């Protein structure tokens, strides 16, 4: 698969990020549109809470774009819950064509790739991209009950309670989705669910090197390169491997999992993870930086660890994936 250039680059005309308590206490707190310190969003179960969080993010993004739900051609959404129920229930009352996606932590980029392609090719005039994760629903599904007493290893990441939304449009003032590179599945044999950074880093390396090789660009051509949520471990691994391949990313590279929480004051081990992590960082922090003009051209590479509780119990290794999206304040040019 090669890099797809979007000649009539779709514009991100609305965006919103909604988070839970610990995310709102982190370094990016000012960039989020809303948070609920109880993390229940007025609902009685965690699953309903996650849907509500995603629904609120969609409505806030629509409001910012001065649109109503009816004007959306389609919704692309995903989360971590079984059968993607978080997104289905969130999209239920919008009555718009709906595509449920599963890409684990890469979902927001997966949705952005699909959404921007379909908008650019004229299939939809506007569409919404959504992703969410909730610590409590993910913990119940992938790890242990919430009140279960256990220790986390230093390489483990915390599933963020967060949702992010983009509204993509064929017309708009930007920022624009200029290029996309869908990822392929890369599995380097990592089986440890407590070290997902190591499982996903090879996929991010694969996608990034493909992009640089094909376009002839270098990391320093961009203001910022962010990976989805490789966390502390994955961040170190990809820096090592990129350096060996001749790409020095140290000055422009960051990771959403490390940006979301403070590693000093919050006990989050290797950082954040989950679909909502990079979704909220992109739709909150990064978009605010485009607004302020401090960011002109960047690469977003969201990584996903595509295991299930059953595959883990069967001892299978964790397949990783990484989708790349280039977002730029300019619609054309290099």
């Amino acid at each position: 698969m090669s890099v797809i250039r979007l000649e009539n680059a779709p514009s991100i005309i609305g965006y919103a990020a909604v988070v839970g308590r610990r995310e709102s206490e982190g370094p990016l707190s000012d960039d989020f549109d809303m948070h609920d310190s109880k993390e229940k969003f007025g609902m009685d179960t965690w699953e309903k809470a996650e849907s509500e969080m995603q629904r609120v993010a969609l409505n806030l993004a629509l409001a910012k774009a001065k649109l109503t739900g009816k004007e959306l051609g389609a919704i692309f959404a995903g989360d971590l819950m079984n059968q993607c129920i978080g997104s289905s229930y969130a999209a239920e009352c919008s009555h718009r064509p709906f595509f449920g996606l599963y890409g684990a932590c890469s979902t927001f980029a997966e949705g952005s790739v699909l959404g921007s392609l379909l908008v650019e090719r004229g299939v939809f005039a506007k569409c919404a991209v959504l992703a969410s994760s909730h610590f409590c629903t993910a913990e119940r599904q992938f790890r242990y009950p919430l009140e279960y007493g256990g220790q986390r290893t230093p390489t483990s990441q915390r599933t963020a309670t967060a949702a992010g939304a983009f509204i993509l449009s064929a017309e708009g003032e930007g920022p624009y989705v200029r290029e996309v590179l869908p990822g392929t599945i890369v599995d380097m044999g990592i089986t440890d669910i407590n070290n997902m950074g190591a499982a996903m880093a090879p996929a991010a390396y694969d996608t990034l090197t493909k992009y640089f090789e094909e376009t002839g660009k270098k990391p320093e051509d961009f203001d910022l390169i962010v990976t989805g949520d490789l966390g502390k471990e994955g961040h170190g691994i990809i820096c090592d491997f990129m350096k060996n391949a001749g790409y020095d990313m140290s000055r422009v590279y960051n990771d959403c999992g490390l940006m979301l929480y403070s590693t000093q004051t919050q006990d989050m081990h290797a950082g954040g993870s989950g679909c909502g992590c990079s979704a909220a960082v992109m739709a909150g922090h990064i978009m605010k930086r485009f607004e302020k003009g401090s960011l002109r051209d960047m690469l977003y590479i969201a990584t996903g660890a595509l295991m299930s509780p059953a595959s883990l119990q069967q001892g299978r290794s964790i397949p990783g994936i990484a989708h790349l999206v280039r977002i730029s304040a300019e619609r054309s040019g290099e």
Partner: protein
Amino acid sequence: MSLLWDMVKAFLVGGAICAVVQIFIDKTALTPARILVCLVTLGVVLGAIGVYKPFIDFAGCGASVPLTGFGATLAEGVRKAVDERGLIGALTGGLAGSAGGIAAAIFFGYFFALVFRSKPRD
């Protein structure tokens, strides 16, 4: 004075068992559920070969409260029941010996599950 000494013994022995298990938690990929299963099975084996009883006599709750003690209780219950009732005791003795702890865990677990709500942990 003997109470204090009993408590010190329980502290040292119980603490030592926990510290040893901690090595397995940190150094191996064993999940907590597997560790608990290993401990209870080990307790049955140690109880069966007669090692655990003297250990409880020495350390009291330092040996009986860790999950190995739960296993030893199962073994002891089985032995008693086989002595009294023959082969059928192999089936009835274990759970009878540990019935209090299991029933308490189920009852209190159910009761408090109804009363409280789960909260996101830090």
